[in-house]
């Protein structure tokens, strides 16, 4: 009994693996082997979830003849993954999904890689950041919060060290002339709970990491670190929706930060190979599953490829360099 069920699952997996879908034959390049997506972060994080969601969508809709697997290489703040891709020049079956550590890790730890080493494919989305406080606290807006923070001793909990959360914290400190004690944790969920449990005074969690506590009335969003308010109108907590959170800039806190969720290929990939993956991601973006994912995480759904993408990335690199230099996060060794 067990044996037969195991077999049937095997059949299912095999069918997913080598799904011989009816894609018309053409001269275009396509993968000949299993495609690896390298995640330069641990299992369960934002990049990992997105990579696995894409893997699931590609398999479910038969978007590619070959199968896709996700491999986590998180060591050294992601350097392990980036160095692996850098060292696989000419292998068109390897992609890497990036988060801000594409910029912060080489700057902060002096690891020998940079965004220029990789062939850009596409930006799939940008992750938003929101300033959160505990709902029991008296401050209702950014101004009141900063007033309170100026008295000193406020603890800001965040994910990782010298990465996006701490960079945003440093940017707030500079913009508003306050000082926080930044306490790093391993994951966004843990950070949100530290705030709910009143072990911290504020966080800059991604929407998806804190939304449940907002819904449950434990946390209060003060502003979003984007140039415009979020486009999601669905009511979440009482009458409030993502769209009702003001931008930080409009509240007098001039800080903007978005995190890249994009793909790069190994050095030396050809334009045909890049085109295949760009087309693939276009198809992924068209699926309802992808739209649900964007909706749940209140993502900024900007899509970019080619020159536009390269320019965006290089601009972000310069920005990170400046932010990290000012905050004193650059590697000293």
């Amino acid at each position, binding site marked *: 009994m067990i044996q037969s069920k195991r077999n049937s699952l095997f059949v299912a*997996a095999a069918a997913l693996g080598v799904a011989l879908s009816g894609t018309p034959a053409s001269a275009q390049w396509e993968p000949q082997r299993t495609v*690896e997506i390298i995640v330069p972060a641990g299992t369960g994080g934002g990049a990992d979830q997105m990579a696995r969601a894409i893997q699931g969508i590609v398999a479910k809709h038969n978007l590619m003849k070959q199968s896709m697997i996700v491999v986590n290489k998180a060591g050294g703040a992601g350097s392990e993954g980036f160095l692996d891709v850098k060292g696989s020049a000419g292998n068109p079956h390897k992609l890497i999904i990036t988060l801000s550590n594409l910029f912060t890790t080489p700057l902060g730890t002096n690891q020998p890689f940079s965004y220029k080493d990789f062939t850009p494919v596409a930006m799939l989305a940008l992750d938003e950041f929101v300033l959160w406080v505990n709902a029991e606290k008296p401050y209702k807006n950014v101004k009141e919060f900063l007033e309170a923070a100026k008295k000193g001793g406020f603890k800001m909990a965040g994910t990782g060290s010298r990465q996006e959360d701490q960079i945003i914290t440093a940017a707030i400190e500079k913009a508003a002339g306050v000082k926080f004690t930044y306490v790093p944790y391993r994951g966004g969920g843990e950070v949100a709970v530290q705030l709910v449990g009143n072990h911290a005074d504020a966080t800059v969690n991604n929407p998806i990491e804190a939304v449940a506590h907002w819904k449950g009335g434990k946390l209060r969003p003060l502003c979003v670190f984007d140039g415009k308010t979020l486009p999601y109108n669905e009511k979440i907590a009482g009458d409030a929706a993502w769209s009702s959170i003001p931008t930080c800039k409009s509240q007098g806190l001039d800080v903007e930060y978005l995190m890249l969720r994009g793909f790069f290929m190994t050095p030396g990939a050809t334009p045909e190979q890049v085109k295949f993956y760009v087309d693939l991601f276009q198809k992924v973006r068209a699926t309802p599953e992808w739209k649900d994912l964007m909706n749940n995480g209140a993502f900024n759904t900007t899509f970019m490829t080619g020159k536009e993408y390269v320019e965006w990335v290089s601009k972000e690199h310069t920005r990170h360099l400046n932010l990290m230099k000012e905050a004193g996060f650059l590697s000293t060794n």
Partner: protein
Amino acid sequence: MSGDGNAADQGPAHRTIELAVAAGIGIFAILVVYGALQAGIGWGFEGPKAGFFPFIMGTILIGATAMNLWHAFQGSRTKVFADWGALKQVGAVTIPIAVYIVLIPFIGIYISSAILIAYFMQRISSYGVVRTALVSIGVPLVTFFVFERWFLVALPKGPLEAMLGY
């Protein structure tokens, strides 16, 4: 090699190995302390620096090792660690495992495993050729299907698998 005459015929002296292990740990401890000093052991603007904790551990380890070296030094000079025949047996598996591991990046884990199993069955035990062939080919093949096909986990593969399209 043991410096002790009467124990050397049966095997290395236990004391020699004790001293060697303690010395090895001592070197490790010094490395840890050195690395910790590189990382900084003070109190930075983010609290205790990266090297703070490893430095303390390294220092304790150096102390403990000094005690262990002292005890080992006083230990019996005649006790044998293990006789040469037994150590030969240990070497007879350690060397093939080392070769096996070195082979993995070149010919993949599946073919290397087939060779390892065949070697064990032929040289360490003695089974018939047919049985050896069945087990040494069958087990890696099943493993291949479990990992590469069911669970979609990529293990190191070599030229043979590449020829077959993996």
